[in-house]
């Protein structure tokens, strides 16, 4: 298994600086002024959602995780692939530069995983057109949520793999750049180099391990348990809804269909392996007709099939645990495979 440690440590010119002011809001204003499409967390009632924002005021950063994942910036719920009438009229591509402000380490890692899926081998041009223009401004985690387990995948919630990383440590704003794009972006701001004491503070912050859940993955056991009755037991209360997959930052399944007979649009929309129609074939055969087969598929997809690409397709954000209406818990399920 390939380790998921980033290439961050290989870059020696990483810039580490201090900002006086409200960096995240200033970053949004700056990006908007330069014509970026900015995705940031918006507070709705008691929770946060990643959404496109039109001003810095709309964003709010008081969260552990926004409820939806940041993947919407590169893989939107719906997108038009083709506009057609008697022939193809237009193939729309994303022209605008895109930024995600407020992404956390788990979602940032998830985008790297989506890259493997959409850009390695067959290249998805729609995804690529967004991804190429993407700038990520991440926030480090101060504390984990109840169902966070990102550290199980070698993710450091205090050191997200993003272009720019923002941390609030001891009342000070630390801003680091980990890529050329990030470095260019930071050149827009008035920053000063961090002092020796500050560097120590930041390093200690980054090195601290957070107390969180841990998932035990035994691939050999998974390999042998495909036919186990375990999956039926786990699935007994599953409702076959799409919460787990739609909130998941690494799930990438979609469906394509046409809207309009003589004139219309070809649309790509999210789909979920938990829906019975997902695998229904036109012969009316359904290889995963039972809900336990669909549930099993989700776990095998993330922890076994995906290994072909070298990584588990889970980043430990815990959204599927928090919001599963039946209380199905990926950490317990995978750790308890038999």
């Amino acid at each position, binding site marked *: 298994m390939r380790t998921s440690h980033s290439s961050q440590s290989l870059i020696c010119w990483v810039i580490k600086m201090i900002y006086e002011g409200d960096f995240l809001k200033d970053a949004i204003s700056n990006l908007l002024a330069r014509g970026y499409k900015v995705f940031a967390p918006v507070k709705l009632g008691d929770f946060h959602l990643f959404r496109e924002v039109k001003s810095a005021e709309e964003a709010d950063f008081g969260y552990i995780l926004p409820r939806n994942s940041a993947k919407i910036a590169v893989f939107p719920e719906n997108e038009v692939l083709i506009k057609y009438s008697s022939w193809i009229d237009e193939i729309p591509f994303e022209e605008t530069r895109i930024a995600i402000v407020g992404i956390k380490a788990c979602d940032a890692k998830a985008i790297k995983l989506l890259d493997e899926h959409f850009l390695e081998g067959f290249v998805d041009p729609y995804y690529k057109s967004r991804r190429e223009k993407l700038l990520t401004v991440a926030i480090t985690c101060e504390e984990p949520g109840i169902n966070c387990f990102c550290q199980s995948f070698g993710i450091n919630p205090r050191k997200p793999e993003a272009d720019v990383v923002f941390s609030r440590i001891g009342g000070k704003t630390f801003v680091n750049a980990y890529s050329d794009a990030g470095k260019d972006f930071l050149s827009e701001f008035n920053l000063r180099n961090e002092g020796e004491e500050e560097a120590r503070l930041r390093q200690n912050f980054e090195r601290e391990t957070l107390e969180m859940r841990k998932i035990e993955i035994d691939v050999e056991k998974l390999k042998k348990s495909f036919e186990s009755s375990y999956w039926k037991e786990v699935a007994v209360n599953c409702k076959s809804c799409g919460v787990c997959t739609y909130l998941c930052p690494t799930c990438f399944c979609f469906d394509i269909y046409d809207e309009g007979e003589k004139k219309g649009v070809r*649309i790509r929309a999210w789909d979920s392996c938990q829906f019975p129609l997902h695998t229904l074939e036109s012969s009316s055969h359904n290889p995963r007709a039972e809900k336990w087969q669909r549930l099993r598929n989700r776990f095998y997809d993330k922890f076994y099939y995906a290994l072909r690409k070298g990584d588990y397709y889970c980043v430990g954000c815990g959204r599927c645990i928090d919001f599963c209406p039946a209380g199905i818990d990926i950490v317990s399920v995978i750790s308890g495979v038999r």
Partner: protein
Amino acid sequence: MNEVEKIREELKKSGAERIVAFVKKENEPREVLAVLSQKDIDKVTFSPLSVNNPAKLLMQLNGKVAVVAKGCDAMAIRQLIKEGKLKRENLFIVGISCRGVIDYRKLSKIEKLSEIREVRLEGEEVVLKMRNGEKRIPFAEVIEENCLYCEHPTPVIYDVLIGEAREGRKDFSDLEKLEKMSREERWEYWISQFERCIRCHACRSVCPLCYCEECIVDPSNLAISPMSTAEDKASYPRLLGKTVNAKDNAIYHIIRVLHHAGRCSGCGECERACPMELPLRKLERKLEKVVKEVFGYDLNEDIPFFSKLDMLGD
């Protein structure tokens, strides 16, 4: 004997091979539903965080089943019996006279869930057993809004009742705010809500009354070719696309809710399941009111609402 001990005792006495009851979820203070056998009876627990409705789970089980049911759960079970989906003689219902459940999301805003070990009700207070010591908060602060206007806190159907029977509320005052809005304001309100929907269909999937094998809102994408007959096409109508936008979402929710006319048990699973926190119960409540006031139908009648409409003709 406390409530949990009484529940275990009754489940044991039922002699049922299978038991549908609440067990503690790993790593969190809430309970989840499980299908158990008699030997697991010590795992059974119950608290104001035993929020889910077991009715849907019952439909996939055969033979004698003992089930723990709160007031709203019993409403759903009775409805499913009325609709021929469950058999009364197969069920042993341990009814719980319910004081309401805790809104987990509200609780998580007040206390760090990872610190809470156990939750119980004592008078008007919720007692939280914390990692370090105990804390008390007023129940009113964390009660699920849906429970405030519950009409049937005492199960309408049971084999044994735990707790004293209690009265429910029979008014629709919770709808006043929406009803006072102008048509335009109301439209705007709902569109602003539906806009958030991601169409995960959790509201439908958790609903004990949404048991249709084929749902009208599912876009069946079977290939339609020039060879397809009119009949083929007609049998796979695509009423709604998969596109997520406020208006398509509104159609989805309105269609879904209309199928619950005179049926909704009021358990609130739809609202709890919604990761986007849409106020779905308000739609169901309005429908409930219309069914009652316009059609004069009472949920306690033996005949299902739609059958009654058929009988009445136009």
